[in-house]
C-alpha cells in the first residue's frame, strides 16, 4: 500500500548515485525485494512508472529480483526456505525457535546509466 513512498526513496537514491558519478540519465535500476517486505512487485512497478516522469529516470526500467523467505532452526539446525511470506515454524521439525535469514530485503543493487 505504501509503494509510492518506497518509490520516492528509491528514485531519490538512484538520482543521487547517478549524479554523484557524473551522469544525467538512468537507463535501468535493479532492486531486491524480499517476499516478507510487504511490498508487492506489481504495485512497485506501477508506482515507479507513474512517478519516474520528470526525473532523470523518466526512461528507466525497473528490474525486480524477489528474495524468498528463509530461516535457520535453532532446534534441528536446518536451513530452510518457505513459500509463504512468513515463517510460522520450522518446516522440518515444527520447532518455533528459529531465526529469519532473508525475506525483508528492500535494496537497490545496481544502476545502469547513460
Amino acid at each position, binding site marked *: 500500500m505504501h509503494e509510492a*513512498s518506497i518509490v520516492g526513496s528509491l528514485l531519490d537514491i538512484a538520482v543521487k548515485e547517478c549524479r554523484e558519478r557524473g551522469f544525467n540519465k538512468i537507463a535501468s535500476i535493479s532492486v531486491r525485494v524480499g517476499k516478507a517486505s510487504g511490498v508487492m512487485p506489481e504495485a512497485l512497478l506501477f508506482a515507479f512508472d507513474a512517478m519516474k516522469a520528470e526525473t532523470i529516470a523518466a526512461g528507466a526500467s525497473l528490474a525486480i529480483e524477489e528474495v524468498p523467505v528463509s530461516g535457520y532452526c535453532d532446534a534441528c539446525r536446518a536451513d530452510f526456505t518457505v513459500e509463504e511470506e512468513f515463517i510460522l515454524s520450522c518446516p522440518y521439525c515444527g520447532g518455533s525457535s528459529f531465526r529469519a535469514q532473508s525475506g525483508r530485503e528492500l*535494496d537497490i543493487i545496481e544502476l545502469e*546509466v547513460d
Partner: protein
Amino acid sequence: MKFKVASKILDANERIARENRKIFSDAGVYVINLMSSPGAGKTSLLENTIKGLKGGMGLGVIEGDIMGTDDAVRIENLGVPVVQINTGGACHLDANMINEVLGDLPLKDIDILFIENVGNLVCPAEFKVGEDIKVMILSIAEGHDKPLKYPLMFQESSALLINKVDLKPFLDVNVEKIRRDALSLNPSVKIFEVSCRTGEGIDQWIQWLQTLTS
C-alpha cells in the same frame, strides 16, 4: 554503463528514525508507536490511559491521520499536549513526519510520548519513527483470523491489546485463538484483554506502562 550500489531503500527513514530516537532519549522521553486498523480503539485507549494515570506521569501524544483533527481534539480536551499530523493520503507515519513536529512538543515535560499511527494493520509496521517500542491493538470485532493474516505487526509489537472485550456476548470470535496465534508469531508479546468502554483490563495495562519507565 552499469555500476553496483548497495543501498537500503528505507535507509533515509531509518537514519531519521535514529535521529528522532536520540532526541527522545536525550530528553528522557519513552516513545510508544501505537498501531491498529481503523477504529480498533487507539484514541479510546489513549483517553483511558490519560484518565487512568491521573497526572502521575507526563504524557504527550502525536496523532497521525490521513486528514482531520478529531483525534487531536479528543486528546487536547483531556489537557495533554498533542500535535496532529495529517499525512495527506499516506497510509503510515514515517520518521521525517515525526522529525518535523518535534519542536511543537514540550519534550522536557514528557515521560511517555504516544504516537498514534494511521489506522492500518499493514503499513505502519514497516516504518520506524524513532520509537522505543511498538504496541498494537486488535479489537475482537475484527475477527480471530487477523494474527495469521497480518503477521508483521503482531511480530513487531512488544504488546498486544485485545480491545472491545465487552462485545464478546455479541460475537463468535475466539479470543483464545488470537492469543495463541499472536504468541506463535511473537513468543515474547505481552497480551492485555481490555475494554475501553467499561475500563476492564486498563489497570493492568497502566501498571505495565509504569514498569517501562520506572
